[in-house]
């Protein structure tokens, strides 16, 4: 165990000196972190500006736009901060992520769909309430 650690440690040092460029590529570089950060700032600032400044007259349009910005920002974080790509860990990272995303979509969309239809179908008293939802 300890000899294996010593090997690995030695190796990390070798990598650190000789293959610095590759190491940077595997873990992100200053440039990639800064790109990710600047994109995140822009992608965060615009939704806040849209909502706080009440820029658009349509709430539906604002909602759609900020949701789209959130999705883009999540991808930006995944790529630039979490270093997701199709080849890390032999692709298992990406596979696990895709599987999780499928489950997340089923959980979210399924819950909302089922629960709001249940409201409408099973509780007539609340139909009025449902109509008044903004």
């Amino acid at each position: 165990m300890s000899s294996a650690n010593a090997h690995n440690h030695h190796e990390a040092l070798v990598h650190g000196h000789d293959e610095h460029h590759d190491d940077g590529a595997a873990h992100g570089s200053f440039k990639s972190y800064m790109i990710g950060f600047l994109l995140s700032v822009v992608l965060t600032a615009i939704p806040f500006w849209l909502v706080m400044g009440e820029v658009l007259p349509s709430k539906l349009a604002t909602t759609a736009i900020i949701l789209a910005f959130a999705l883009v920002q999540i991808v930006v974080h995944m790529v630039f901060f979490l270093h997701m790509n199709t080849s890390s860990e032999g692709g298992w990272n990406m596979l696990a992520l895709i599987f999780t995303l499928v489950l997340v979509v089923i959980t979210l969309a399924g819950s909302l769909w089922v629960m709001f239809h249940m409201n409408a179908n099973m509780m007539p008293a609340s139909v009025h309430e449902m109509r008044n939802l903004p």
Partner: protein
Amino acid sequence: MSATAHAPGLAGDASRFYLKEEHHPQNGTLLGFWLYLMSDCLVFAVLFAMYGVVGHNYAAGPAPKDLFYLELVALNTAMLLFSSITYGFAMLEMARNRKRATLIWLAITGLFGLAFLGIELYEFHHLIHEGAGPQRSAFLSAFFTLVGTHGLHVSFGIVWLVVLMAQVRKHGLTVVNRRRLSCLSLFWHFLDVIWIGVFTYVYLMGVLR
């Protein structure tokens, strides 16, 4: 080189795989940690779904529009974003084998994390003080559960960060500590990803409706 890289359990093409991937595949820790994060993601998905289902039930109490100060949320978001980039800088210094700089960036990350927590606790205190505690309505129960769970994750992240700083200080940037720092990096950036969902879905869309 390939002789030292060849670990038991790896296939015959290990050296080639190794050169492409650096030291990631040396063991399954990072993949395992990623799988944990994915399961954590499901926890948050369920909490988001719950908030989506009951988030409109105000029980004649206050609505998001009456409660949320977006200026405060924007400040909070900035704290978390800054902590993400400073953790990135810590990882870059770690790759360069500079222990002191790594520790400094980790400390700055921790301070931003604490600022985030402080602002969130201030907000919670303010809400509860106004009578908008978790018992007030289904909306507020869901809100406190979702945002509180995220805050709890950040708290444990900070504890982990402090522990790792002590480890790095004592033992240096060993392979084991590098691996731990890489895991915490995933955790920390993952929490930022969850926060994107929180500020968009809970705060911004809450104020919109």
